[in-house]
């Protein structure tokens, strides 16, 4: 067994494989299929200050090697999370990361400071890149001063590991990564979904109730990999990579490009046991290629 231990600032993962927010529920949905304690970490679905109904149906459509979603952060709110969900998931023997969202800086801070009090949550992922909500969400992730402001404000109220999740829908993602690094982020995670759209030519209507939605899956992998590589070269904090990872080979590509950890999203829908298979596949790769530790592989791409 190679050494898979991965440190994301103060957050210590037993391996670099995490789940991506919004694709893994709260973990319980997958416990029939895998032993959750084998995962590096679970990023739970996006939490907002108040309950949200999300967007109307239809919320998803399949595209070539990918899918568009427009869930719109449906969730029962932070208080419900703390009261009803946290007690259950804090029992898992894996790191829980809470993906936090808001329509304003105050809202982000409200969620962050409430989560700050939870013993068993050692990190939050600040989602400034959700393309599926009208207020907040991606707006913070595509406007650098806003990204800075929200990072700073959340940093002030949150004192454990702060991961900022970046949007790929920008001209220069490096600018955002550096800006949040300079303003208190302990790590960045990328990419969130690409803004896309699908049309039904028979009905001549958009396939999603919201017209546009977020593109995920293998289709976006080349873009994600490029961004991880660019960001890794530019920042000192750890990078968590994701976007279209379907198997261990994909995961290794992200790690070579500079990701210290990776997240699995859409792939869970196709194979609910994929996360654990990827942990094993990474270990096999390390052993076959005589790497002692996963950290030897991070950014080991030869250009």
């Amino acid at each position, binding site marked *: 067994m190679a050494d898979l231990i991965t440190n994301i600032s103060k957050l210590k993962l037993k391996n670099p494989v995490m789940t991506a927010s*919004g*694709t*893994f*529920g709260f973990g319980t*949905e*997958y416990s*029939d*299929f895998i032993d959750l304690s084998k995962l590096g970490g679970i990023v739970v*679905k996006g939490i907002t200050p108040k309950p949200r*109904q*999300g967007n*109307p*149906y*239809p*919320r*998803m*459509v*399949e595209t*070539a*090697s*990918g*899918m568009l*979603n427009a*869930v719109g952060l*449906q969730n029962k709110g932070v208080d419900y999370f703390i009261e009803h969900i946290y007690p259950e998931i804090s029992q898992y023997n894996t790191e829980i990361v809470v993906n936090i969202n808001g329509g304003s800086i105050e809202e982000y801070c409200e969620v962050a400071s409430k989560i700050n009090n939870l013993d068993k949550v050692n990190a939050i992922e600040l989602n400034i890149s959700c393309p599926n909500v009208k207020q907040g969400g991606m707006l913070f992730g595509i406007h650098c001063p806003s990204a800075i402001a929200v990072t700073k404000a959340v940093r002030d109220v949150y004192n454990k590991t702060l991961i900022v999740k970046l949007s790929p829908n920008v001209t220069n993602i490096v600018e955002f990564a550096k800006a949040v690094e300079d303003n208190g982020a302990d790590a960045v995670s990328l990419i969130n979904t690409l803004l896309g759209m699908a049309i039904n030519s028979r009905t001549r209507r958009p396939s999603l109730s919201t017209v546009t939605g977020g593109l995920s*899956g*293998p289709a976006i992998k080349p873009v994600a990999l490029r961004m991880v590589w660019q960001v890794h070269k530019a920042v000192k904090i750890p990078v968590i990579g994701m976007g279209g990872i379907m198997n261990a080979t994909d995961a290794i590509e992200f790690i070579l490009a500079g990701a210290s950890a990776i997240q699995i999203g859409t792939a*869970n*829908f*196709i*194979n*609910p*046991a994929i996360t654990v298979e990827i942990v094993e596949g990474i270990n096999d790769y390390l052993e076959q290629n005589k790497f002692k530790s996963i950290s030897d592989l991070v950014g080991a791409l030869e250009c």
Partner: protein
Amino acid sequence: MKKLIDTLQVIDNKRLNKEFFVLLLQSDKQLPEILPGQFVQVKVEGSPRTFLRRPISVYDVDYSQQSISLLIKIAGDGTRQLSKLIPGEKLNIIYPLGNSFSKPSDNRLLLIGGGTGVAPLLFLGKYLRKQYNIVPEFLLGYRSKDLAIELEKFEEIGKTYITTEDGSLGHKGFVIHHPILFDEKKEINMIYTCGPEVMMKEVAKYANNKNIACEVSLENLMGCGIGACLCCVVDTIDNGNVNTCTEGPIFNTKQLKWQI
């Protein structure tokens, strides 16, 4: 009920007509308990245009043979690919998924189906007989006679009324026009229905007017089928958006915000 990922073997692929086929699949393990209304998520191999799994209702179960069957209509690339499976090939599924039709409080039941919507009703009918010793009646609607697939299987279970749009079999018209629904002497205590949404809404309206309890099986687009993605939601009276894949696919129409 624990969900499984399992790779089953195709035992038979029976083509019923241009659009429909029945897959008989066998597991090398003992089957979990499967309830009527539940579905499986099928992984389609060998198609460049299908990426996500496809939800398909359970059409029949044979625990002794460790086999399940699926009644499938060719709707697009994924189901077309499935229609080409040959005995001996493998099919990966996740199952059993979703809730199930509820236990009836009475034995005067009508099971109304249209198109592939008949699939969960066959299994429900068998289950009702076996589990509760209730003999249900069926009202099944088709476009025409040649699409009235495996009718004998339904007739074996209980009295089966038929409508066809072109009148080639049974009563001419839609299910909702069948005389049995307007027969004053006929008592119906509960309706279970599955089929095209327009049909189910008509049935729901009928049931509502007559004050008959009505359960429908929804076919919302699904990302995961296991409650993780929140893509398959339906808006409900009490709980707002809920997952069709876990809270459904079976809903009492009173729960839904349908305009009926």
